[in-house]
């Protein structure tokens, strides 16, 4: 049996040196007795330490995956006396089973993961439950000084101290624990694994913290087990606020009963004044005379249920009088968020082709058949859904007012929904496409596809061809206007 004595206060180096020597000497795990106690003298004659095997000296130094070192750094902090042997067993097995750490349910790996998790949790709880208490400043330094006492389960002070140094960098502080201390002074961190004594702790600010703790507690939803799962009782003695827990629990029932008793008292005076002020009616114009008032009215539109699932009404955009009006189907995701028509991917494609056809967007009135985005959530996205005939008919009221006010000579209907909104008919789009048709008595209609259709075409050749035709349609509208405007 090979006996190895370690300090065992969370320092990986001492274990690593010993483990390396044993591994090179080819000592199997069951032949090592790891201990943090000095051996009782004289009971057994000391075995001579075996010299490293000559074969091992010549072989390459042992290697381990980086994940093992990360795990070992944590596991070594655990107070379980079996941790050294467990790590050595893993080290030896890793020499032949290189993928061992991928087998999470392996008994040794699972055990090491449990220890690692316990150490991480202990570290986390220390970052949570350390309470600093202010002590008066020193005369030579303007830095404020704080002191804390904490009782960790494991040897974690050295491991976690840098966290406090990164966080509380502009003050001097000292954390004392039975398993070591961390001191931060003028920007330098000193740690030690020597046990410390509990200091006297007093801080008047604790009274404010206790007030906060008592007030943020909701007596109507007592869940004591949930509290104790995350803040086990062993921490309570060092948490100033924990002293309040028994009385908060005891008083909860009474407070809830009192709330039920005291409901529905007459409202305070200022409430009446506020209500009177808010009740003042807002005069609204019945028949909108300008696009601006129309837009304002449309913002509150609830003619169909689509307004509940969209962000906002996306109204048309463009000059008060425009010779050309373009009607799309409905706003998409980007349009819904921004509140403006044709700003998403299809809008960009539309803009490009409008420009290529020689049309200025600033002189064109652009709008949609339906003013709210109809969609369906799918994970982190929203999927477009085609509006139905009922929704288009409801929204046609707004399109009609837009036509009345803008008075375009030519209206371009992009896609079937726009065509239906303008004509109340559902002919084949291909039959009407590419010709200027009369629309009512004093305006004309040109039918084409929606730019979103072009984006959806999977075949690049088809897409180029259809885009060319789309541009041709827009050019036709433009040419017609030039010819008939004179």
């Amino acid at each position, binding site marked *: 049996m090979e006996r190895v004595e370690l300090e065992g206060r969370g320092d990986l180096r001492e274990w690593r040196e010993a483990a390396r020597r044993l591994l090179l000497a080819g000592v199997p795990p069951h032949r090592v007795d790891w201990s943090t106690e000095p051996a009782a003298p004289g009971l057994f004659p000391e075995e001579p330490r075996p010299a490293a095997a000559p074969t091992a000296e010549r072989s390459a130094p042992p290697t381990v995956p980086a994940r093992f070192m990360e795990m070992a750094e944590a596991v070594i902090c655990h107070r379980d006396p079996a941790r050294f042997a467990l790590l050595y067993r893993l080290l030896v097995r890793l020499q032949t089973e290189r993928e061992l750490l991928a087998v999470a349910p392996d008994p040794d790996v699972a055990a090491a993961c449990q220890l690692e998790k316990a150490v991480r949790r202990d570290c986390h709880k220390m970052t*949570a439950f350390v309470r600093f208490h202010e002590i008066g400043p020193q005369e030579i330094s303007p830095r404020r000084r704080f002191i804390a006492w904490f009782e960790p389960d494991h040897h974690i002070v050295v491991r976690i101290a840098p966290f406090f140094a990164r966080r509380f960098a502009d003050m001097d502080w000292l954390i004392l624990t039975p398993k070591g201390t961390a001191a931060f002074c003028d920007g330098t961190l000193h740690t030690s694994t020597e046990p410390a004594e509990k200091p006297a702790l007093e801080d008047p600010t604790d009274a404010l913290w206790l007030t906060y703790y008592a*007030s943020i507690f909701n007596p109507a939803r007592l869940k004591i087990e949930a509290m104790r799962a995350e803040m086990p009782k062993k921490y309570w003695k060092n948490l100033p606020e924990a002293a309040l827990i028994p009385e908060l629990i005891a008083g909860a029932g009474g407070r809830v009963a009192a709330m039920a008793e005291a409901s529905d008292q007459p409202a305070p005076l200022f409430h009446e004044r506020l209500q009177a002020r808010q009740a003042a009616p807002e005069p609204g114009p019945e028949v909108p005379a300008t696009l601006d008032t129309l837009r304002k009215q449309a913002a509150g539109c609830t003619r169909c249920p689509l307004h509940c699932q969209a962000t*906002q009404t996306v109204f048309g955009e463009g000059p008060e009088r425009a010779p050309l009006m373009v009607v799309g189907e409905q706003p998409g995701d980007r349009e819904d968020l921004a509140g403006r028509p044709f700003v998403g991917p299809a809008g960009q494609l539309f803009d490009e082709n409008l420009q290529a056809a020689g049309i200025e967007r600033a002189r064109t009135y652009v709008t949609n058949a339906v003013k709210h985005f109809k969609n369906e959530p799918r994970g982190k996205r929203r999927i477009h859904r085609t509006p139905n005939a009922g929704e288009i008919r409801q929204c046609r009221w707004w399109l009609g007012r837009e036509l009345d006010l803008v008075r375009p000579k030519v209206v371009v209907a992009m896609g079937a929904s726009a065509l239906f909104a303008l004509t109340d008919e559902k002919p084949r789009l291909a039959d009407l496409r590419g010709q200027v048709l009369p629309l009512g008595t004093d305006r004309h209609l040109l039918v084409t596809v929606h730019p979103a259709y072009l984006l959806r075409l999977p075949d690049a050749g088809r897409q180029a061809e259809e885009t060319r035709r789309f541009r041709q349609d827009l050019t036709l509208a433009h040419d017609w206007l030039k010819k008939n405007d004179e």
Partner: protein
Amino acid sequence: MTRRSLKERLAILSDAAKYDASCASSGTSRRDSTRGGLGSTEGSGICHAYAPDGRCISLLKILLTNFCIFDCAYCINRSSSNVERARFTPEEVVWLTLEFYRRNYIEGLFLSSGIVRSSDHTMEQMVRVARELRLTHRFNGYIHLKTIPDAASALIAEAGLYADRLSINVELPTDAGVAALAPEKRPAGIRRAMADVRLSIEEAGEPTLRTRTRRRFAPAGQSTQMIIGADNASDATILGSSARLYGSYGLKRVYYSAFSPIPDASSRLPPVKPPLMREHRLYQADWLYRFYGFAIGEVTAQRPDGMLDLDLDPKLAWALAHRDRFPVDVNRAAREMLLRVPGFGVRTVDALLIARRQKRLRLDDLARLRVPLRKARPFIVMEGWTPRRLADRADLRALFLPEPQQLVLL
């Protein structure tokens, strides 16, 4: 009237803030104060204390003032309530945050406010607190600001520079619910605010032309809260609204807050015990939607009234209703199906997928991964284990139901 002490006002204004469930302090950019200032944020949040209501205390959660011109029936601070009123100055909030932070009581500040004078005035005061903390005191801890409905977009833009998280509460799952209980709030305005924040976050995430560094705008994203049980919306309606909010505005979280009795409650609401189990089930269903590949419709289809089963967790309830999809072979099934096994979490599934490349997995392997076997066993096949008769038992559901509880006298 004599002015109340800081301590008295702290009691009033934290009592007034406790009905907001949000407490997260995680997921923001990594910062520390090694180059000056105070505070750090390192990815995971820290809960510094737990109250006997089981909720964590991570942030100093307070209102700037609990005066409010709105009269929302469910709210302790509504204008018709006789609750004591108080206000902090921005300087007092800054002082409290820093002194609490130095003593390691908190991760940072969660500041909200009743609406006084106007939305803009209120938001301006809140932004001032955040600006002071960040610029004057070089505070690197976590800041969560509530955005006030209809505040000017310039104020929201400035808030996003200083805050880690912005949030605005939709309050109730449906527009009709808001109209009935919070008549002054406008759901459309709330949605527009969330859309603006999403656009700002995305814009800040794009590298600018001149520098590769990204601008900072609410790096921990935005969240919202719904009150559960104040109106009669079903769980299916609630979760449908959540799905819509996640999909529309890229929210990090939708919080569910069981409506709980408040002092001087309005007679428009029943003085009931808060539906805590319902709240818990909604969170579980929300997780299934976001991390386990379930559609909302799948989770809520088990009962005709669209409510979740209070006795069984929603994944188990789904599995019991879809026995034909089981048992699942743990050594061969795809990730999507393993995620549907009751008792298997995302981490378990990922560990199993890696481990099964090295060896055939057995039931005791699961035990060592701390999987609740009683729950998982009827739904899986492994080396040396088939559920046989267990999977076909007609009373399988009964095996999972909680022990019947004796009725207590009132």
